[in-house]
Each structure stands twice: as C-alpha cells, then as structure tokens.
C-alpha cells in the first residue's frame, strides 16, 4: 500500500513512526541519487557514502520537512550540496572513467562498466559499444559543473526546469540556458559518434 503513496505522504507516515514508509522512499530514490552524485564526483565509493549521508540528513531534519514544498526538491538540494562539498574536498578524485576501478581501494578490481554489465542483464549495455559509453562519460566530465548538474537533473533524473531552478536557487531561464549550453558542449564532444548513433 505504501508504494502507491506520494513522497510527501510517505514522509508523513515516517514521522508517525513507520520505518517502512522511509524504506519505500529509499528504494524509490537511492539509486537515482547515487547516479546523480556519481556523475557529479566520479567515485562510486564516495558516492555511496554520500547517498547514506543524504538520507540520514533527511531523517535528521524530517521534522522540518513539512515546510518544504516538495520532497524531491529537498532531496536533490541535499544531494547537490553534499556533492559540491565532496568535490571541493577531493577534486582530484572527480575524473574517474568507467573503465577505472570503482574506488581507490579497488585498484585492479571491478570497474563501473563491469558493475553495469553484471547488474543489468539483457540491457543494451552488453551490446552497446563500450567505447561510446566511455566517450559519453568523458564528454560529460568536460561539461562545466553548473551545466552538468542541470543536464543530469533534467536528462537523467527527469526533474522539471522549475524544480531544478528551486534546487539551484536560480531563475528558470538560467536553468534552461545552462541546459542548452550543456547540450551544445556534449554535441561537440560526441561529434565523432553522431553518425553511428
């Protein structure tokens, strides 16, 4: 039954003491938040830690949530802030290609591409050109931070421009401009693959 509830209703139930409601929220958003943070900072291990921090911060500040307009806006605001902090602290760990180990502790171990392939049986990843995916990751890393976060929120996370504007605290037209610049930047980096896609 809880799976049919809205995010806000689930938070209400969590505040009433229902842990299962919060678990639904975690199941609903943890994967998306993880990928958002991962694309931001490039280190899967750090990204997982930050996803934990995001949800624990949600728990910590749950009592004040009712003043929030929308749960996802709040959630991504926390995720973005933690990502920016992590980037500032460990800027050098940002550029982690998919074919590199998942984290600094996994030297010689599994890569992001391995994890994708292993956990997505039957997906297009198995048949897709791994070189293209690596190029796409590299192209995304070349996009300026402010444009990349808008691109990730809209293109990958599916947030509306209005919502992204609320998260970033900038006008909606600014968000749209950044989105257009991000698309142009990616197009330039992926020009070599344009004919094959």
């Amino acid at each position, binding site marked *: 039954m809880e799976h049919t509830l809205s995010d806000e209703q689930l938070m209400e139930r969590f505040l009433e003491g229902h842990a299962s409601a919060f*678990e639904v929220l975690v199941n609903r958003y943890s994967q998306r938040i993880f990928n958002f943070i991962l694309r931001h900072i490039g280190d899967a291990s750090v990204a997982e830690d930050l996803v934990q921090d995001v949800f624990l911060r949600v728990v910590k500040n749950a*009592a004040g949530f009712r003043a929030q307009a929308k749960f996802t806006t709040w959630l991504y605001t926390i995720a973005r802030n933690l990502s920016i902090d992590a980037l500032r602290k460990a800027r050098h760990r940002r550029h982690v290609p998919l074919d590199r180990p998942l984290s600094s502790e996994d030297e010689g171990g599994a890569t992001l591409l391995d994890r994708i392939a292993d956990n997505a049986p039957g997906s297009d990843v198995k048949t897709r050109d791994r070189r293209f995916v690596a190029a796409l990751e590299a192209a995304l890393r070349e996009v300026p931070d402010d444009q990349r976060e808008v691109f990730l929120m809209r293109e990958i996370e599916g947030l509306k*421009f209005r919502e992204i504007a609320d998260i970033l605290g900038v006008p909606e037209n600014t968000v749209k401009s950044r989105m257009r610049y991000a698309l142009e930047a990616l197009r330039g980096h992926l020009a070599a693959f344009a004919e094959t896609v």
Partner: protein
Amino acid sequence: MNPTRQELDDLLVDYLYDELDAADRAAFERGVAAYPDLAAEVEAHRRTRSMAQALPQVPLSAGFIAGLMARVEVPPASSPAPAPRRSTAPTSPPGFFARLASFFRKPNFAMALSALVVAGVAALVIAKGAHEEDEGTSQLLREPASITSADTPAERAVVAPPAPQAAVEAATAEEAAVEEATVEAAAKGGEAQEKQEEDEEAKAAPRAKKAAPPAPRRGAEGVAPPAAEKASDDRGTTIEALWKRFDELVAKERLGEAEDVLAQLARAGETGRVREARAALARAAAAKAARAQPAAATKQGTLEKVLDRDDER
C-alpha cells in the same frame, strides 16, 4: 501569427523536453520550419539527447539499502507532531539525586549557598557572644543601650536580660535552619532563596523581640490599654521581670549579680521591696558563708596538723 526567431530560441529547450503546452508546441513547430538553421539545431540536440540515453545507470552495492536502514532512527510511533522525534523524557518525576544534581547546575545555587554560609557564621558569632554574657556578670544589665530602643536606663536594663537566652535559642535554631535549608535547597532548587529569606527573618526575630516591648499583661484580659496606661504597664512588666531575675540569681547564689539587679530596682523606685530584698540577700550571703566556713576550718585544721608533725620531727 508565427513566433519570432527570438521567441523560438526561448522555447527551444522547453520544446526538446516537452514542457510546452499543445498550443505553444504547435506554434513552435510551425515557426521553426521558417528557420532551417534552428530546425537543424533542434535535430542535433535530439540526437545528443538520444546519445545521452545510453548513459547507464550504475547500481548501488548489494545490501546498501539494508545497511542504510539499519542506521535510520525511526521517530516514536505515537507522535504525530514532528517536534520531539526521540522520546528521551522520563515518564516518572526525577528522584532526589536527580533534583540535587539539577540544582547544583543552577546558577543561583552559589549565591544561595554563600548567603547561607554568611547567615550561619553570623549566627555562631551571636551565639558565642550571648553565651559569654550569660556566663559572666550581666554585661547587658549595665550597658544595654546599644541593643535596645527603651527610653530609660531601667527599661534598657529590663528588656536586655532575655536577650542572651533568646539569642542562644535563635542561634541554635538558626544553625539547624541553615543545615535544613542546605538540604532543602539542594532538593528544591529555587526554594533556596526563600529559605535564605526565612533564615534572615529568623535571625532578625530575636532582635525584634529585644526591641519590641513585652506583651502587656492587661492585654491578656482583652482590654486594650490607652497609650499612657500602656507605657505604665510596660514599665511594671519590666520591673516584674527584674524581680524575677533577682529571684533566679539568688536561687543560684549568684549574689553579686543579684545585688546589681537590686540596685537597678532601687533606681526604678522599688525602694520598699528593695530594702526587704537586701535583707533577704544578706541572709542568703550569710548562709552561703556559713556553708563555706566548715570547709575552711577543715582546711585550716589539716594545715595545723601538718605543721605540728613537722615540729615534732
């Protein structure tokens, strides 16, 4: 009317991401047909978006959610209100030691304790002074003016004697009150200040007793005396008190002090009774001397025997 190029530029991103309503979308599609470069840009962005769809979703580690949920502290089930999410408040009132500990953490504790210590020291000083006065010749009988508001020397002398005993009692009560106040204050925290005030009142009470005139005897009969009559009654009461004091001193064979009291009574005009009292005092002195004589004689006899033995040797 078709939109301008600028308007089409402004709508491009909304169009790509389906954030235009049907009318605006139709208007955009009609308008972009007039600008081939813009149409090419729209197509290029679509391809880029298509490529971006290839960006894979990286899965979380196995057991991540279980690990996260293990760290989540769930709010109390019975609290619909969001305010206190962790119920740490005890359901029963705090015990004595908890209240004691909480009191010691209060900032007014030091102030209250300091005041109590000062009050205790003052009480001991008063008690000591009163004890010394009671033991020796009655200092207050001779120099009572400094602690009384009575008008005449006789009255000053009369109202003074009860003071030492009252002071001793007050001091004793005050010491007990200090101890009691300390415990009470520790237990009740904020009541310490009140207790201190009570101690102050207890200390002030003997002084008030000294300063205040003794209760008029006629008052006990239910008749309120006029002012002049009241003064006469006060004087009579003090004289009676002096006589009582005299009797006590004679009974204790503190005859010197009794003589002092008689002198004051004589100055107060009690000449007739004083004369009789002097006779009685003389008899008491003779009796005391008679009791002391055999002992002296015995002592003398013993001395003579010792001297005789020495002579014989």
